[in-house]
C-alpha cells in the first residue's frame, strides 16, 4: 500500500515533469532560414521551368537542405545553452512531425518513380497535398511548442484549401508558376512567422 502510494507519487512527478518540458529552442532563426530557402528555391525553380518529376525532386532537395540546416541551428542552440541536443522535448517534436512528413516523402518518391514526369499541371495538386501535410505536421508539433505553432499549422492547411478552391474554379490566379507558388506559400509564410517570433521575442526580452 505504502509502496503504491510512493510509486504513484513518483509516476505523477514524472508525468508532470514531462508535460512541463516544452520545446524551448528559439524557432525564429529556423523559420527565417526555412523561409529564405523557400523563396530562393522558388526563384531558382521558376527559372528552371520544371515538369512534375523534376519539380518533386527539386523540392525534395529543398526540404532536405531545410531540415539539415534546422537541425544544425537547433544543435548550435543546444551547445550554447549546454543542454542535450536530442532532449525529450526534441524527441517529442520529431515524433509529432514524423507521420505527415513521412507521407509527404513517400508521395514524393511515388511521383518521382511511377508518375508521368512530363506532367506540369499536377504540380499544383502536389503543392496542395504538401501544404496540407505540412500544416498537419506543424499543428502536431504545436502541442509541444509554446507560441503560435498550432495556428501556423492551420494557416498552411487553409492555404492548401485556398489553392484547391482556386484550382477547382479554374482561377486565373493559378497561372502563377508552381515554384513561385511554393515560394509565396512555404517561403513567405515561414519568413513571416520567423519575423513575428523575432519581434515578439525581442519585446519579451525588453520587458
Amino acid at each position, binding site marked *: 500500500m*505504502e509502496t503504491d502510494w*510512493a510509486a504513484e507519487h*513518483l509516476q505523477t512527478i514524472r508525468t508532470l*515533469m514531462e*508535460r*512541463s518540458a516544452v520545446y524551448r529552442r528559439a524557432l525564429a532563426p529556423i523559420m527565417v532560414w526555412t523561409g529564405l530557402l523557400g523563396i530562393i528555391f522558388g526563384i531558382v525553380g521558376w527559372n528552371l521551368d520544371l515538369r512534375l518529376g523534376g519539380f518533386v525532386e527539386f523540392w525534395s532537395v529543398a526540404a532536405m537542405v531545410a531540415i539539415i540546416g534546422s537541425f544544425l541551428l537547433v544543435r548550435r542552440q543546444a551547445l550554447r545553452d549546454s543542454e542535450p541536443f536530442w532532449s525529450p522535448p526534441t524527441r517529442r517534436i520529431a515524433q509529432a512531425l514524423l507521420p505527415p512528413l513521412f507521407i509527404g516523402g513517400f508521395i514524393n518518391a511515388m511521383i518521382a518513380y511511377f508518375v508521368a514526369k512530363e506532367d506540369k499541371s499536377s504540380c499544383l495538386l502536389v503543392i496542395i497535398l504538401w501544404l496540407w501535410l505540412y500544416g498537419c505536421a506543424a499543428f502536431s508539433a504545436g502541442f509541444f511548442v509554446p507560441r503560435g505553432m498550432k495556428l501556423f499549422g492551420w494557416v498552411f492547411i487553409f492555404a492548401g484549401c485556398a489553392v484547391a478552391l482556386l484550382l477547382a474554379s479554374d482561377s486565373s490566379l493559378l497561372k502563377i508558376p508552381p515554384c513561385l507558388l511554393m515560394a509565396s506559400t512555404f517561403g513567405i509564410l515561414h519568413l513571416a512567422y520567423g519575423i513575428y517570433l523575432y519581434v*515578439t521575442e525581442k*519585446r519579451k526580452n525588453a*520587458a
Partner: protein
Amino acid sequence: MNPEAFLQLDRVIHEKGRLAIMSMLAASPELSFTELRDALSMTDGNLTTHIRTLQEAGYVTVAKSYQNKRPLTTVSLTTQGRKAFTAYVDLLEQIVQQTKKIK
C-alpha cells in the same frame, strides 16, 4: 519498514498541489502563472496560495514583468527549492525500494 523516511518527507512539498507545482518547475527554467494554472487546472486563488507557501519556504521565486503591455508573472525554482525537490524524490524512491525488499 523504516518509518524514518516518511518522517523526513518535506511537508511543504508533500501537499498534492505544491508537489505538482514543484514537479512542473523542476523540468522547466521558468513557467508563467497562466501556464501553471492551465496545466494543473487550479483556480487563481488556489495557485496563488500554494506559490506563496513555496515562496515563504524559499523554494520558488516570483518575477513580475510585462509582455505585449500585459502583466506577466513567472515562477521558477530556487537552488534551495531544487535541492529540496531532489531530496524529496530521492526519499520517495528510497521508500519504494525499502518496501520492495520487504516483499
